[in-house]
């Protein structure tokens, strides 16, 4: 930062045009001030675009949603807002359907996250060994993640269809079958979890793989010299080294499952999709929000649901943080 000293431009030639001496001295003082300001302020200016964009597309909608949550706003008259205070929150908290959605969201979240991360961990471990055409396998494993929610959900809707669905057709040969997957309370949740697992396992596998490759190889060498089997290496070397990464994937998956929307909406589609099944058996919070806002046209309660979801995420984050602290402490 030596160049930022005020004396550095003592030899600056006067700019074009007639300039008188006193003005020149005055100008130099100004220049140095501007430069000092420049040094301090430009970093902020460089990062300003992000914050401006975030303010406009992140913070403003968030706050405005909160504002709407305190009003009665109908889809048919977005310009008419009527203050109702906490009534919208009161309304959703006393709605049995809201609590169904909360428990569905958590159940589907657990049912999809746990197997997904376990499988991802195993796959990453396999991919971490020397394989022929490893890039090919890694690409293949990421392919489901690259497909859109809509196409994945539509394809799986065909698989899980009650009448003439692929899965029932296969089950038919083993003497089972004729399960109305979307209709049952558990079967519908299983169906949705399968779509989520199928889409996200590859993504998590690659994250684990990246973390595994950062684990020093001498640890493995030392372990194999000691006669540790692959399974033992996995348990005693890989897992402990991966702890922060695992925590990260849990957080990401939790946020993802809180926002689960496309899969339940499209499993049956149409009217039933929008209410999460004929008995709300697979209605998630996002679907509940969507139905309230866009199907029934009541934007106030819909906005209240959005804020309730934020609150739930913050609670989960707090639990996660406490859990993480506990894990770190017990690891020491």
């Amino acid at each position, binding site marked *: 930062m030596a*160049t930022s000293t005020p004396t*550095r*431009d003592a*030899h*600056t030639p006067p700019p074009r045009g007639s300039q008188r001496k006193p003005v020149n001295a005055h100008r130099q003082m100004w220049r140095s001030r501007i*430069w000092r300001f*420049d040094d301090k302020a*430009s970093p902020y*200016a*460089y990062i*300003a*675009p992000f914050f*401006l*964009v975030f303010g*406009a597309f992140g913070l403003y909608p968030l706050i405005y949603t909160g504002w709407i949550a305190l009003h009665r706003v*109908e*889809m*048919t*008259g*977005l*310009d008419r807002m009527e203050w109702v205070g906490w009534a919208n929150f009161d309304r959703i908290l006393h*709605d*049995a*359907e809201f609590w169904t959605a909360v428990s569905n969201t958590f159940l589907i979240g657990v049912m999809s996250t746990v197997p997904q991360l376990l499988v991802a961990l195993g796959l990453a471990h396999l991919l971490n060994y020397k394989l022929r055409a490893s890039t090919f396998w890694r690409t293949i494993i990421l392919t489901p993640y690259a497909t859109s929610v809509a196409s994945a959900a539509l394809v799986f809707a065909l698989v899980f*269809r*009650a*009448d*003439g669905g692929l899965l029932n057709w296969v089950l038919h040969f083993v003497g089972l079958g004729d399960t*109305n997957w979307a*209709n049952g309370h558990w079967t519908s949740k299983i169906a949705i979890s399968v779509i989520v697992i199928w889409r996200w396992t590859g993504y998590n596998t690659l994250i684990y793989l990246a973390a595994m490759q950062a684990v020093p190889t001498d640890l493995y060498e030392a372990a194999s010299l000691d006669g540790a089997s692959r399974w033992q290496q996995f348990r005693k070397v890989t897992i402990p080294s991966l702890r922060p990464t695992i925590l990260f994937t849990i957080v990401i998956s939790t946020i993802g499952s809180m926002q689960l929307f496309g899969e339940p909406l499209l499993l049956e589609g*149409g*009217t*039933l999709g*929008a*209410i999460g099944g*004929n*008995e709300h058996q697979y209605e998630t919070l996002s679907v509940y929000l969507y139905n309230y806002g*866009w*199907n*029934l*046209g*009541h934007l106030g309660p819909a906005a209240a649901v959005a804020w309730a979801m934020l609150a739930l995420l913050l609670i989960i984050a707090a639990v996660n943080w406490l859990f993480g602290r506990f894990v770190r402490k017990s690891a020491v």
Partner: protein
Amino acid sequence: MRITRTVAGRSRRAAVLVTTGLTASALLLTGCSSDSDSSDTSSDANGKITLTVADFGQFGYKEAGLFAKYHELNPNITVKEDTTAEEKNYYPKLLQQLSAGSGLADVQGLEVGRIKELADTKADQFADLSKVIDVNEWVSWKEKQATTKDGKVIGAGTDIGPMSLCYNTELFKKAGLPTDRKEVAAKIAGGWEDYLKLGEEYKKKAPAGTYFMDSASAMYNAVVSSNAKQYYDESGQPIYKDSPSVKQGWDLSAEAADKKLTQGLAQFGDPWKAALRKSTMATVACPAWMAGQISIAAGDANKGKWDITTAPGATAANWGGSFLGVPTAGKHVAEASKLVKWLTAPEQQAAVFKAIGSFPSNKGAYELPDVKNAKLAYFNDAPIGQIYADEAKSIPETVLGPKDAVIKDTISTQINNMEQRGTSPDKAWKAATEAIDKAIG
């Protein structure tokens, strides 16, 4: 000297970068609010304009070749259609666009279940079509639905859905029932109770794996549609809980579900289409536009097996039917209104009827040979023009409400639960009323 120059240069570059960055992000921020109105570009120096028509489902204009014909008659006008498959997705978008005053097409399709809500809340954003069309050309109740309290007409009627009964003659024969149109009509002349009795008769000798009707919710819709009073009273109060027509429809559906007369398939879904292909249901409550749906789903293999007769009971019913409205936010309101007048004129409605079977709402069309003498080859040459035109005359003037579509949907879902899951009528009714109160409130 060298040093200072580079420093000055760097700082200037930095200033330029910052300014560019800020300008770029400012542009990005304002970009979404800037008015990128596309209708400006739809009119070029030669006065040629492009009119856009946004609709849902199947309006049949493309199938009848009407947009191309309009371009032939008016070489300076090109019509483009933007179709959303499900009205359920179309309507919220329309409301948003109306609120924003942008993104609207020159002509917008409006569904009958929504017309009341639009007339109540959005009338000021639609052109008054009563200055362009003669409302007396329509069947009396149709244009009234799109008329506001102060006499403004926000939509010109397209089709209506006079009710009939479609039945599978092959299955009827196997179950020992009459197959002739008149004989079937006589059996159910007493109303929907007779229809259920016929169902029990069918069930006694029915071929294995077949059902009397496709879905109880369809029958419910047909029953309610034949009444003037449905979900709201004239003053706009929701009365669905005590409405006699709703109660009648609900009780009949519960009975049908209880007696297992229905296959319990949600209409227009893939399983429903598959069932039609495999001929597992004997009857379908049949608004005019339904015949087309059945023939497409059941396929050529079942051609001639189906027939059409009058719906149960003496009072006719109407199910469905849409309107075309012209938003005032459009750049070509006058031209769009002319297009709407042309599209809903008798000749064009008759052409749509011929192409996809949507029945005209413009009375003038009933005298045209394309409608009057129309027979459906697929349905054993049923004289549909005559059947539907007769029905259309006795359809009662229904009282519409703002949330008709949502109420109908919600009740249908619960009827579906009774059929498929054996949910008790009391429990289903409770669930339906809770959901409806949430929707209305």
